[in-house]
């Protein structure tokens, strides 16, 4: 099928965005090559993280029959950490809930590509794309270690660092405050131990967001996700904060693991793998130009992540789908110019993707100015309150609550409280407006 070094579409990067784009193109009857720089799809990938049913169904309607799902998430817990204390709020849905599931990327991405191959996608692993070939302002192909390859449309799905989108000027270099560094350990525990410690059964799964503790005052959150026979424990921390506070990411992870409320969840677990990855957190304001003559940018490369809700894999898959559909329409019209490919952006605008990114565009900017309070002081106060509320020690309650209330205002000046209040209002109205 591949001759004369020319095909219809080349997709660079076999993550969720790339594979969705490639399979959409193949289903439309066009020839497509999907490149991957690793030995297999998923071998370079890491995430928090969960995959969302609504997006997967649009690409693989029957995925439940054979996809490597670890566990569907039934319990969402928010754990606020103080030094030796924690307060956890858990939302549990007892109805059958298939909203989101956990999977291991080395298995999931690989499975997705296997489906794509079955549907006619030509998969090229061990293929690093070093650069894009541009002629008269139009992207016409790719350069690999071995050769040059040409296509009418190139879909750029090369991930958060997207050296290729940068090469052709679609985006500026990302700034430390527009990215978070994720570090994670996958820790082996038996299924029974996981079920018991997380209060779930084998058909259920737990997701934890961890606030405060060693991350106090930073734009950083910890996370725990239950796999079948292991748990993923990690931190996503603003690169700007790690940089300015001079914090080594693996030290922060060790501190989090040693918090007693976290330590008891992973006790006697065996480390299976350690990994690190950047997360695009710039949101709407940091998005690159999404298309040019002959090319479109999808997934992490396009910075399509809603970090407040931990959504990224769904935006990746659907952006890939929209880019694939746009490529097919471009073939129908015989027009691969940016005037045609702007349809891709319109599709994103009409979907939840750009609507949500617009809604949340100022949230992180506001939060990053108040991390000391929203991700530090208040979570600590919650733990302190529950300590008082639950302790019987022969001391009368009135005095304790008066002291708690006085301390609340003494330790945080009125002006700081006022700023927090303004920020809270801005956050709410930012989302509701």
């Amino acid at each position, binding site marked *: 099928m591949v001759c004369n070094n020319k095909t219809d579409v080349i997709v660079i990067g076999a993550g969720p965005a790339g594979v969705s784009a490639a399979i959409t193109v193949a289903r439309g009857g066009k020839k497509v090559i999907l490149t991957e720089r690793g030995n297999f799809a998923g071998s370079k990938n890491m995430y928090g993280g969960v995959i969302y049913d609504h997006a997967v169904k649009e690409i693989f309607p029957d995925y439940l029959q054979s996809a490597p799902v670890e566990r569907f998430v039934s319990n969402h817990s928010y754990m606020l950490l103080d030094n030796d204390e924690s307060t956890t709020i858990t939302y549990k849905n007892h109805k059958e809930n298939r909203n989101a599931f956990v999977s291991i990327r*080395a298995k999931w991405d690989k499975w997705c590509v296997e489906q794509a191959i079955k549907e006619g996608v030509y998969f090229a692993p061990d293929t*690093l794309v070093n650069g894009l070939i541009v002629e008269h302002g139009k992207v016409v192909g790719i350069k690999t270690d071995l050769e040059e390859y040409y296509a009418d449309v190139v879909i750029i799905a090369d991930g*958060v660092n997207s050296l290729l989108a940068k090469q052709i000027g679609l985006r500026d*270099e990302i700034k430390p405050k527009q990215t978070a560094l994720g570090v994670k350990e996958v820790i082996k525990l038996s299924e029974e131990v996981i079920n018991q410690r997380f209060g779930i059964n084998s058909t259920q799964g737990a997701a934890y967001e961890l606030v405060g503790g060693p991350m106090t005052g930073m734009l950083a959150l910890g996370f725990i996700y239950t796999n079948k026979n292991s748990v993923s424990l990690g931190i996503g921390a603003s*690169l700007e904060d790690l940089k300015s506070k001079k914090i*080594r990411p693996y030290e922060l992870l060790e501190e989090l693991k040693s918090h007693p409320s976290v330590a008891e969840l992973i006790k006697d677990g065996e480390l299976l793998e350690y990994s690190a990855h950047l997360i695009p957190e710039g949101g709407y304001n940091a998005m690159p130009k999404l298309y040019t003559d002959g090319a479109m940018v999808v997934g992490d490369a396009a910075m399509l992540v809603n970090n407040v809700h931990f959504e990224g894999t769904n935006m990746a898959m659907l952006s890939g789908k929209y880019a694939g559909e746009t490529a097919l329409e471009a073939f129908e019209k015989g027009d691969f110019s940016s005037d045609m490919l702007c349809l891709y952006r319109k599709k994103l605008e009409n979907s939840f993707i750009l609507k949500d990114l617009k809604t949340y565009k100022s949230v992180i900017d506001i939060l990053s100015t108040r991390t000391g309070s929203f991700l530090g002081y208040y979570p600590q106060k919650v733990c302190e309150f529950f300590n008082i509320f639950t302790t019987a020690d022969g001391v009368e309650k009135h005095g304790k609550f008066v002291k708690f209330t006085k301390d609340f205002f003494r330790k945080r000046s009125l002006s700081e409280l006022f700023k927090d209040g303004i920020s809270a209002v801005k956050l709410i109205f930012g989302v509701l407006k």
Partner: protein
Amino acid sequence: MCDKISENLDNKLYKVKYNTDSENHLIPDVSKCLQCVEKICTIICPANVYNYNESEKKMTVSYEKCLECGACRIACRHINWKYPRSGKGVVYKNS
């Protein structure tokens, strides 16, 4: 404390599979390193790839430990950062 942490990191990296490239893909501009006060690469890297020897005034780059995240290239503008060549570098199996 520092030794304990580096031992911790060694234990973590011991579990990571690599298909090591024979060529270094991370080239800092060493002339800039000499003047750089912060040396943020030695702190921010989750695999501790960059080490600066103060007495020898020398930056060593253990590129074979690199997890290919890109944190160093965002935090420092003086690293010629590329991916390892086709099929080389880190191979995640459980993440």
